[in-house]
């Protein structure tokens, strides 16, 4: 088996409790790298189209990359994959911390589940052995208690836990998978898939070393690379992502007032800015092999979780800026509630701002909610997310996301449901970063800010944007392909995007070669990235999902231009950008099906057949 992998892939049928091991397929690792690359290939081959994502035939995968758990910079990522119950499309969600590396130290590269267990169970991966264990005593427990109980049982030092909380158990479509008590595989609603299978957790205990082509050189290489952190990395080290909140409101990247306002409406953003957040931090922490260390534990305080984590920029914006809430304490508590319940803070925050605007427009009232919902009311934000976490009262409607809630409420509520294809948009505005209007629609997981875009997250040195301005569609397509492909490479090899963004991109190639022994040129990696992105798209086409037919809230595109603020007068011509992207991809401009020659060039012809 290739270096960089443990060589073992596990298939678990939860219906009958059978566990089947296969040798990790070397050719898959070469062509699809790892993570959701291998994940999509396995699910495309083995899961029937059209299955209910919460039903017995749905598959759910936990995947690592060849660099996960190695000395490579920021190599702590694992990715959960499946069909998203939130969007009906391909779904994946990645997380840092230490769980991914420990899944490998326990002996496994990939674990795929199918079926539904009769009673709650967890999977134990223990030094090369796998078994299903009773989880009746854990069902109903929050993610932090679950983590504590399991690590107490198996020993804290070499054990890590990935689990769902009550939100996943209750199959909230905006629920996530949590590990290390504060790291989230947040998007795509995959916590609900885990809940539907009555799979409470995966426990990984192990000390097995990841086989490497040249382990000594990998360690030396790491030492050489660490000082080469760029300024963006310095900022994340000092503040975490909280350090960008003030700046991104000022430039117009952050959504304000449920995407209907601008920085002018939120002059007190500095109350939730990096300095204020860090003043409440007890200690910063890093994920596996990360010296950026953007994470943080917060000081103890009344109403806070026993282990309270530093809110990310996304959380500060979705529960702060986007509801005009400058009460930092309420956002810390919002974050704690989401982490404990296993809710995605982006979608939960969006559900809150949707509810506030619906309340202000008398679509819902005091009788529905039980308390007033006004812009800027931090206490209402925490009270409401608590209801969502419990699926109680109005929370029952909001717990499946804004698209579903708007359909249930009617009365024009869809105007306030800011999503793409059913997934709530993250806190980066396409009016400021126009390429995201394409990423949010055209990536196989709609509404994601971690899937690339021109002028957006990418390693230093990936490319230079040579267009006359950021709105220009001329030559956009080729650049967007490159940006997306490199992000797929980072995501699937197990590298954190913040590391990817904070060093020259050549580190990925160098570490891959040193650790796996396989030589990749930049062009080969780009091709692998495009292959992965294309197969994820083919998964969606097979499900009957054409991204051109997807709902996309026009607020995010400035279809009615804003009249003040940094994005005043801006309307994104997303049709032109998408059209140029399809041209460059050689995908049909109407059906979005890749041409036969493109499928051939990517080596996908046999996989997708006549689909």
């Amino acid at each position: 088996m290739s270096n960089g992998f443990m060589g073992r892939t596990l298939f678990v049928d939860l219906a009958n409790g059978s566990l089947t091991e296969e040798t990790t397929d070397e050719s898959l690792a070469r062509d699809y790298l790892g993570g959701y690359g291998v994940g999509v290939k396995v699910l495309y081959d083995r899961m029937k189209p059209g299955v209910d994502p919460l039903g017995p035939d749905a598959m759910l995968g936990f995947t690592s990359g060849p660099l996960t758990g190695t000395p490579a910079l920021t190599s702590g990522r694992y990715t959960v994959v499946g069909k998203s119950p939130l969007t009906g499309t391909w779904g994946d969600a990645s997380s840092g911390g230490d769980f991914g590396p420990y899944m490998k130290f326990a002996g496994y590269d990939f674990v795929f589940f199918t079926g539904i267990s009769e009673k709650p169970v967890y999977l134990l991966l223990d030094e090369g052995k796998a078994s299903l264990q009773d989880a009746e005593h854990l069902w109903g427990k929050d993610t932090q208690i679950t983590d504590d109980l399991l690590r107490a049982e198996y020993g804290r030092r070499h054990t890590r836990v990935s689990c769902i909380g009550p939100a996943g158990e209750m199959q909230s479509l905006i629920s996530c998978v949590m590990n290390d008590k504060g790291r989230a595989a947040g998007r795509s609603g995959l916590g609900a898939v885990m809940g539907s299978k009555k799979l409470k957790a995966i426990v990984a205990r192990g000390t097995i070393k990841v086989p490497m082509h040249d382990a000594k050189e990998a360690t030396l290489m790491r030492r050489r690379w660490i000082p080469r952190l760029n300024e963006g990395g310095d900022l994340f080290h000092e503040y975490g992502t909280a350090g960008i909140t003030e700046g991104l409101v000022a430039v117009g990247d952050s959504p304000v007032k449920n995407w209907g306002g601008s920085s002018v409406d939120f002059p007190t953003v500095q109350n939730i800015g990096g300095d204020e957040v860090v003043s409440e931090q007890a200690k910063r922490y890093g994920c596996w092999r990360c010296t950026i260390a953007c994470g943080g534990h917060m000081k103890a305080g009344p109403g806070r979780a026993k282990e309270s984590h530093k809110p990310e920029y996304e959380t500060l914006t979705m529960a702060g800026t986007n509801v005009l809430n400058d009460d930092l304490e309420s956002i810390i508590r919002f974050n704690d509630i989401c982490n404990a319940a296993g809710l995605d803070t982006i979608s939960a925050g969006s559900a809150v701002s949707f509810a506030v605007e619906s309340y202000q427009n008398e679509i819902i009232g005091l009788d529905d909610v039980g308390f007033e919902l006004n812009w800027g009311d931090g206490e209402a934000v925490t009270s409401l997310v608590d209801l969502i976490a419990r699926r109680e009262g109005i929370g029952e409607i909001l717990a499946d996301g804004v698209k579903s809630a708007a359909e249930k409420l009617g009365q024009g509520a869809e105007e306030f449901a800011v999503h793409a294809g059913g997934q709530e948009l993250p806190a980066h505005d396409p009016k400021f970063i126009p390429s995201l209007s394409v990423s949010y629609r055209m990536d196989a997981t709609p509404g994601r800010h971690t899937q690339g875009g021109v002028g957006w997250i990418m390693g230093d040195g990936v490319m230079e944007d040579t267009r006359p301005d950021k709105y220009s569609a001329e030559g956009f397509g080729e650049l967007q392909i490159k940006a997306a492909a490199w992000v797929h490479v980072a995501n699937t090899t197990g590298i954190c995007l913040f590391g990817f963004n904070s060093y020259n991109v050549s580190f990925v190639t160098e570490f891959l070669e040193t650790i796996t022994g396989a030589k990749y040129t930049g062009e080969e990696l780009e091709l692998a990235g495009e292959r992965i992105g294309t197969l994820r798209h083919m998964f969606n086409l097979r499900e009957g999902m054409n991204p051109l037919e997807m709902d996309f809230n026009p607020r995010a595109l400035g279809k009615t231009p804003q009249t003040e603020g940094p994005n005043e007068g801006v309307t994104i011509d997303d049709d032109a950008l998408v059209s140029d992207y399809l041209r460059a991809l050689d995908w049909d401009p109407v059906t979005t099906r890749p041409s036969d020659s493109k499928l051939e060039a990517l080596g996908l012809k046999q996989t997708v057949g006549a689909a």
Partner: protein
Amino acid sequence: MKITIRPIGPLRRHLEGDSKSVEVTLPDGSTVADALALIGIDSEAQWNASIGGQLVYKDAEVSDGDDLLVFSPIAGG
């Protein structure tokens, strides 16, 4: 005229000690670049700036009482 400059993140190294902001005095007609030069931030370096929630560029004129926010180019989060 007097304005306040508030660097964010690593750009704080241009301030003394643990200061989070600094008040500077400038002649009328001064620009964002003039103001930042006073604390040693080069106009050719990579940074973004805003006043009152609006993005401003290096040649923009500043006014008495402005609160000038300056921060590193950022992506992610």
